[in-house]
């Protein structure tokens, strides 16, 4: 089929039967109205962009469509017939397929075995016959994968193709892609969109959940913006909207752009962080960091780009002395401009720096700084006062001091750690995915905080999977691939595609 078919599908006389029609869906969790009166229509042969901040109700909506949650109110129709999927299996039987952000593949199994898991197909696996079917489907949808490869050995982009193929082979006509591009290099995003376009041309419906507005404009035929559980905007041809308009719909107010004017990077003196041939093992005992040379100088912000799992985590841990190097050297500058020490936000705060049972206030004294004392104990009122001042100055609005961290969402936990770490002076700042889980306004504030550190003369090392974010804030971008540092690019004049080539292991 070609675009003609799409045109026909769209231009059909009268009302075309929607693949999926959601009417007045509402869902409440305790005090939180997660979805309120949500409408969504996906026509065959179209791509529907669904955007909204964290907590806007996107995943609640998807989970109701996919049968994980039951709506409190509202109706759903597939091909015009009323449905109420009670489980993911029900939803799949209706032709609804979901590609989760963290994928649901088993790394130790082959692609074919993973697909077999999804296909109820007799008591034995008959892998040869399955491989032939996979090859056929790969061909039909333009999704190249090797059925006999173990998922563990595939790149993120290949895994995603395998997952999409799995969903299609189970008979999905509506494919929901949950934040599919957040972990991909630009080239892989292009390839994915090629596949999405092909699915659309074959008359399937695609729901693309993303927070990257440019992507919605590029590929989507329709856009729905959720905020606070409600539909704020539903329109055709999102290309007609500007970033500012879509952000305003998402956030509810204008978010001023990041100031472009920066203090110039001071002339290079003593580096605050110097890695020479740093090599280190990962958690599974494999070599995860391979001979990395990198310096971070005072007053500069060095971004680290790379496909997830390319050694970024080990790089940060080596820089902070949390992971020993097996060879090479790590040097940390003693003090610059009167600043000393390092502050850090780890890649996975819940695992690495949160004590779930302690309160926000208690976390504020867990950073090794001097603590106000009263007798032998801690002067909690003084800590409370100090924390209130800190929260005000940092401006990320932490959760109430008495809440335990185990009761907070990922974004709120991130804000507690960011406030504690970025709220104090240091000569070296290491931030891994600092804006993970944050909404647009807090992401912007976090970027400002990192730039403030830079302006005060600290060296900042920042890992992000969002190239646009790195290009917006970093002075230089170090690109990692498979544990190697494959290139350091000056952000001025950097182009996304050449950084993408480096991320994929090629040469710029």
């Amino acid at each position, binding site marked *: 089929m070609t675009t003609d078919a799409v045109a026909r599908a769209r231009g059909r006389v009268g009302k075309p039967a929607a693949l999926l029609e959601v009417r007045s869906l509402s869902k409440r969790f305790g005090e939180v109205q997660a979805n309120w009166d949500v409408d969504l229509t996906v026509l065959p042969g179209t791509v529907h962009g669904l955007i909204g901040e964290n907590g806007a109700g996107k995943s609640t909506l998807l989970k109701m469509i996919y049968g994980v949650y039951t709506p409190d109110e509202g109706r759903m129709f597939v091909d015009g017939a009323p449905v109420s999927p009670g489980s*993911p299996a029900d939803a799949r039987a209706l032709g609804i397929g979901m590609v989760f952000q963290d994928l649901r593949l*088993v790394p130790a199994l082959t692609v074919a075995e993973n697909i077999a*898991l999804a296909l109820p197909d007799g008591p*034995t*696996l008959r892998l040869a016959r399955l491989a032939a079917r996979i090859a056929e489907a790969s061909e039909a949808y333009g999704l190249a994968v090797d059925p006999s490869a173990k998922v563990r050995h595939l790149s993120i982009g290949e895994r995603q193709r395998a997952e999409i193929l799995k969903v299609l082979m189970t008979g999905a006509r509506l494919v929901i892609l949950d934040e599919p591009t957040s972990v991909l290099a630009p080239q892989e995003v292009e390839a994915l969109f090629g596949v999405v376009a092909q699915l659309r041309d074959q008359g399937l419906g695609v729901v693309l959940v993303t927070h990257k507005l440019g992507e919605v404009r590029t590929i989507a035929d329709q856009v729905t913006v959720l905020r606070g559980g409600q539909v704020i905007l539903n329109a055709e041809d999102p290309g007609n909207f500007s970033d500012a308009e879509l952000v305003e719909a998402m956030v509810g107010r204008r978010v001023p752009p990041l100031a472009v004017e920066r203090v110039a990077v001071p002339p290079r003196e003593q580096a605050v962080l110097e890695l020479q041939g740093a090599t280190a093992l990962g958690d599974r005992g494999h070599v995860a960091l391979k001979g990395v040379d990198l310096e971070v100088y005072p007053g500069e912000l060095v971004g680290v780009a790379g496909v997830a799992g390319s050694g970024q985590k080990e790089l940060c841990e080596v820089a902070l002395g949390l992971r020993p190097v097996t060879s090479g050297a790590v040097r940390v500058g003693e003090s610059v401009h009167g600043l000393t020490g390092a502050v850090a936000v780890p890649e996975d705060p819940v*695992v690495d720096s949160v004590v779930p049972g302690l309160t926000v206030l208690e976390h504020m004294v867990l950073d090794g700084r001097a603590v106000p004392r009263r007798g032998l104990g801690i002067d909690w009122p003084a800590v409370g006062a100090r924390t209130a001042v800190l929260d005000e100055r940092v401006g990320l609005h932490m959760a109430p001091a008495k809440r335990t961290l185990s009761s907070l969402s990922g974004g709120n936990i991130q804000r507690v750690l960011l406030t504690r770490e970025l709220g104090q002076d240091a000569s070296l700042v290491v931030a891994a995915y600092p804006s993970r889980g944050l909404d647009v306004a807090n992401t912007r504030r976090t970027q400002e905080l990192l730039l403030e550190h830079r302006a005060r003369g600290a060296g900042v090392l920042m890992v992000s999977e969002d190239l646009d974010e790195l290009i917006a804030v970093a002075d230089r971008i170090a690109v990692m691939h498979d544990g190697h540092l494959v290139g350091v690019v000056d952000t001025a004049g950097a182009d996304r595609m050449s950084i993408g080539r480096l991320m994929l292991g090629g040469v710029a």
Partner: protein
Amino acid sequence: MIIDILAGAVRGGTSIMYAGLGETISERGGVINLGTEGAMLLGALGGYAVTAETGNPWLGVLGGALAGALLSLVHAVLVVSRRANQFASGLTLYFLALGVTALFGVSYVSQQINAFTPVPVPGLSEIPGIGPILFDHDPLVYIAYVAAPVIWWVLFRTRVGLLVRTAGERTEALEVHGYSVQAVRYCATVAGGALAGIGGAHISIAYANSWFENMIAGRGFIAVALVIFAMWNPIRIMAGAYLFGAALSLASVLQTSGIAVNQFALNAVPFVLTLVVLAVLGRRTMLAAPDELLKVFDNSRTT
């Protein structure tokens, strides 16, 4: 004497193989059962008691399997439903089984039973060397020859096996396709316990032909260690089990041929062998471990 040792290796390794195969299924499904030793003890007593009461060793095998399955069912309730610590539950169940079998086994000590006897395979058992080593044994030895490849096939070539492996690798993937992780883990753990029970029954009604307290003497723990260095592969379990069988039979052959070696030192050989193999392989084998099982080992994670 070499032939005696090798024939003894096959005979003595069989019980370890059954238990190792069972533990492989259980661990592939994400559950470590240190109670394997206990399941073998219960299997040994259950098998012996049923054989003594009915006079039929085949019913004894069934009794042993049920006894082993029962203990593992308790383990499954604790670790799957109640999410208890797998090591604590397994060890406690071992001590429970040790006490229970000592208590209820008293009346069977020195009682005679109609035990399994060697059934030479016509023709094959005549082959010099190979015949006596492989084809002059009790029926459970022959069944074990088939069991290892069959279990390999079930694990790696059938849907049931795929579900078991997924339960041990990534439970989310199982849930998303509408399967119950708990059900799969229950089945894998109980099947593992039944096989350990058969291994125990082999000791009492085919190998020693008697019942005495603590007669498994650590074979269950060896089987658990064997699973790790066989990298969760049934075919390697087979090879490893016979290696330990050889270590066991070396002791008894030397003893019967009158060579003076300290008995306690000989009894320690299989365990020293286990330690040596673990030390040589280090954490390398752990790369083959099911991911969810690794979380049980990894005390830096909370789940």
